[in-house]
């Protein structure tokens, strides 16, 4: 479904991603964990073409998005890029809601305009999502009137509304209370049952352990571990144990 090969990315002198290779299979849920600044968000941004890569190859659902030949980075043509775009979705770490649309419109605009879903259908589906996320009574509010957790749930609903085949989350539960984390977890599980592929950057270990088929641990721009949750939490790797140590302590 998704394959990343030898991806490299620097900001000026700072190399943020170093020779990253990973695969995500159809229907799989993969969590990416790692310390702050290890490049998790940057990796998602590269895959979603919000950053250009310095070298490497990315394939989505069989279509090559970008590859590197003799050191020259080559992106696919626009038709292919647009096809890929429709298959992927991303929930941002800082939400990026549209301030001039109310909650409902934030969610329905993309289905209506991009996927040409009829307005009433889009609104019905949006209301279903809002209900699932406990937000039906805030549907007319504007983003600046939402609490942190509410804004985050709207951002999640907005991405889900497009029904992508692969969905990326950047810390989807960071502003959610445990109760809502549970709700979001439920939603993500139901998506998993519908065979949606998901890649989730998160700091919540228990959440990641619960939801993931596989977990990737990144450190300073490289992938240190790429294995099942059980394997990860029993890893012998020094760095992994150190990182998870704090989590074990916390529990």
């Amino acid at each position, binding site marked *: 479904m998704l394959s990343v090969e030898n991806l490299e990315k620097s900001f000026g002198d700072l190399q943020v991603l170093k020779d990253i290779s990973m695969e995500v299979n159809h229907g799989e849920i993969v969590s990416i964990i790692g310390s702050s600044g290890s490049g998790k968000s940057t990796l998602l941004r590269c895959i*979603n*073409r*919000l950053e250009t890569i310095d070298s490497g190859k990315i394939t989505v659902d069989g279509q090559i998005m970008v590859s590197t030949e003799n050191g020259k980075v080559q992106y696919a043509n626009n038709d292919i890029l*647009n096809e890929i*775009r*429709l298959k*992927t*979705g*991303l929930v*941002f770490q*800082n939400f*990026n*809601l*549209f*301030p*001039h649309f109310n909650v409902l419109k934030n969610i329905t*605009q*993309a289905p209506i*305009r*991009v*996927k040409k879903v009829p307005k009433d259908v889009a609104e019905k589906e949006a209301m279903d999502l809002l209900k699932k996320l406990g937000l039906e009574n805030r549907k007319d509010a*504007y*983003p*600046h009137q939402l609490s942190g957790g509410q804004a985050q749930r709207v951002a999640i609903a*907005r*991405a889900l509304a*497009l029904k992508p085949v692969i969905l990326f989350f950047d810390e989807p539960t960071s502003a959610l209370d445990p109760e809502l984390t549970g709700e979001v977890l439920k939603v993500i599980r139901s998506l998993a049952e519908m065979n949606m592929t998901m890649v989730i950057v998160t700091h919540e270990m228990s959440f990641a352990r619960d939801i993931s088929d596989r977990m990737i641990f990144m450190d300073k721009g490289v992938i240190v571990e790429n294995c099942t949750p059980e394997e990860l939490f029993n890893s012998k790797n020094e760095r992994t144990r150190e990182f998870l140590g704090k989590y074990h302590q916390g529990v």
Partner: protein
Amino acid sequence: MDLVKNMLPSSIVTLEIFFLTIIFSSILGMFVAFGRMSKYAIIRIPIQVFLLIMRGTPLILQLMFFYFAPYYIFAATLPRFWAAILAFTLNYSAYIAEIYRSGIESIPVGQYEAATVLGFGKAETFFKIILPQVVKRIIPPMSNELMTLVKDTALAQVIGVAEIFKLAGATMSSQFSTVPLIVAGVFYLIMNAVVERFCFYLEKKLDYYE
């Protein structure tokens, strides 16, 4: 007073110049703004030169240029009125482009990213997501330009377009009195009060979000 009666046709000309200029230059201004922000120097640099000349030289010279220059080049002139509209449109599109640009550049990059990721095309992103937010932010500097335009219509007289300030000036010298000038001032003030109220209303209307 006869002056007020005589003002009717002139004020219609003034209004025509005003509205045609706004319509044309706010569309053209958008393209100019995009050109100015282009990452290709071959587009950006000519646009910068255009902006410099249009904003850097007196409108009065531009009016004369667009009315008289075609004669020397093509041995034909544009009708006075349309030469004036052409000059006003190009001139104002330059000013408006810079205002658009400041507005567009003040929108957080996350808004583009969110729209991109949701699959919005470039045009949709701009018109549905960015522009509505830009409009809210640029109302005050736009009102500056609109109110200046109301008064700049006076310059059309240079190429013989009979707008209102011209009439006032002529009446002033024949009657040896400042009254006509003040009447014209009041006319501009009224027109600009309408512009101001309109901008104020728009601002209030868009105040529902932050």
